[in-house]
């Protein structure tokens, strides 16, 4: 059996006393790609944020285990150093901090061994070439003045460099044109065999390029149905109403 990367059990989460997740259960093994779909407000982004340890979310019941360890007490930077990665739906803009500086500090923080300049530059060049990113990005400020597509590519670049065991991708395909979508998918596919992937998306089109093992549909803070790639196709065709009707019944 493949390594268990993430186990979420009966997870209940609130924000300022408003329940968002209401008994979420999910297990991801190394090499698996899980896709989570659902209407706006279903709790998809909350799931990714709480797994990554965002302090605004309160776990009221249930557990999250990462690589066999309960991570409830781990801070966000400890989770990152342990190999967890979240590609943000809306990455923060940080004026004054150059992308090159940020990447170096980030990789240095996550890896145990000291960073060797030449080797890192080589690795960085290869990753940027794979994502079709110009080197001028390195001297720009983090996400400052970036288009939606540039922000998402920078997120994927970080993922390639940080080599996570668990990659959480929150609507990474939003706002991408067809070529950018293909490039981002290539990045995801290169990481996926060595990691567990949780992809949050509204659209089936990403799944033309990334082959998921499981597709989950969230309704009201829980997984209402799980299937294979065919479930995403059905949702694209029929929407969520049929599933909501089934769930209510």
């Amino acid at each position, binding site marked *: 059996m493949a390594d268990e990367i993430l186990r979420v059990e009966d997870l209940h989460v609130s924000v300022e006393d408003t329940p968002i997740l209401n008994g979420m259960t999910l297990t991801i093994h190394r090499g698996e790609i899980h896709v989570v779909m659902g209407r706006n407000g279903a709790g998809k982004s909350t799931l990714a944020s709480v797994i*990554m*340890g*965002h*302090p605004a979310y309160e776990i009221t019941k249930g557990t999250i285990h990462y690589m066999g360890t309960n991570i409830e007490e781990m*801070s*966000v*930077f400890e*989770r*990152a*150093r342990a190999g967890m*990665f*979240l590609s*943000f739906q809306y*990455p*923060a*803009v*940080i*004026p*004054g*901090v150059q992308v090159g*500086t*940020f990447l170096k*500090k*980030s990789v240095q*923080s*996550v890896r145990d061994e000291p960073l060797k300049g030449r080797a890192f530059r080589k690795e960085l060049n290869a990753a940027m070439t794979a994502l079709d990113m110009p080197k001028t990005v390195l001297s720009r*400020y983090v996400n400052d003045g970036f288009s939606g597509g540039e922000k998402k590519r920078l997120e994927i670049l*970080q993922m390639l460099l*940080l080599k996570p065991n668990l990659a959480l991708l929150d609507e990474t395909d939003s706002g991408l044109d067809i070529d950018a979508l293909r490039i981002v998918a290539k990045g995801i596919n290169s990481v996926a065999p060595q990691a567990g992937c949780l992809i949050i998306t509204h659209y089936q089109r990403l799944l033309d390029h990334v082959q998921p093992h499981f597709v989950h549909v969230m309704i009201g803070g829980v997984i209402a149905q799980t299937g294979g790639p065919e479930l995403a196709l059905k949702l694209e065709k029929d929407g969520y109403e049929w599933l909501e009707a089934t769930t209510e019944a």
Partner: protein
Amino acid sequence: MKYADMAVPSRALHLWRYTPWARIHPSKVDEVPQANGVRFNALEGGELVEGAPRIIDADDISRVFLSELGGSAWTFETNGASDIVHLQAVASGHVAVGHLHVSLNHDVTVVLHLSGESDWTGLHVTGEVAPNVRAGFGLVNELSSNGKYLHCEDWRIDRDARLELAGLSIGGFRCKSDIRTRFTAPGGELTQAISVHGTGQRHIDHHIEVHHDVPHTNSALSIHAACDDQTHSIATGLLSISKGANHCDAGQVFKNLLLSDKARAEAIPELEVLADEVAAAHGAASAPVDMNQLHYLMSRGLDEESAVALLIEGFMQDGFSSLSTKNLVDEMRTRLTVHLECELKR
């Protein structure tokens, strides 16, 4: 007017509200103490010539006081031989005063590095930018952390000239800077950027005046102050556009990053616009560290201390983003990085 005949300015005045004259004077307000001369050196790219202090505004108490204190007086005139000139000013003794006049007659960047252990340092820089010249002037205040510092600058920008003024304030315990620029002919441009790092109990007061006395002149000012511990940063501005000085475009932006509950920051931009066809704008913002930025950096493996340090550096580096003179920006950013590497844990 002589200093002895001048009244101590009232705290009701805009300029003296936060740093009264008595708090920045080196001794008792009716005294003009003996002063050493600040030692000036041209480190690279030019020569200094001894001269006499120049009084630009005989009604301003700071300028008159600095003039009567005496000290050293030097003139620097560009000769076109170098793209960048480094000047050094070193203050020592109880009271040290220096006057520097800068004539920018060529496209050049001049960086003045101010350091020293003086208990009280006075510096008066006067400067003029010749017609059609593109010049930069940077002042790096690296004085020891326990002295008082009174600093005045007066600039004249001639026809179609462009001046980029940069300031990095990282030294001195109680600092009062009063920087005034005046356009003397149409077509001039001023871009002014100041970054301040407040630690301990530093008190840093910047007063910036830009006078658009003639039409078709543009100015942009930005001040970024990162305030930690119990520091108090003050930035007051006066942007004036005279009657008939149409087609001017002027703006002031003051930003403060508050890093502790006891740090304080005042940002008071002020406009006096007497012309009709102009664009004038001002803005001010004070805020603690942005939690989304902090979370983003921490989600990439940086611990909280390292993430905050990077945000401070970014905030202060961003203070120089409005400048376009590369060697000026590079120099200011390098000095800032060196300072922060010492101050903040990496």
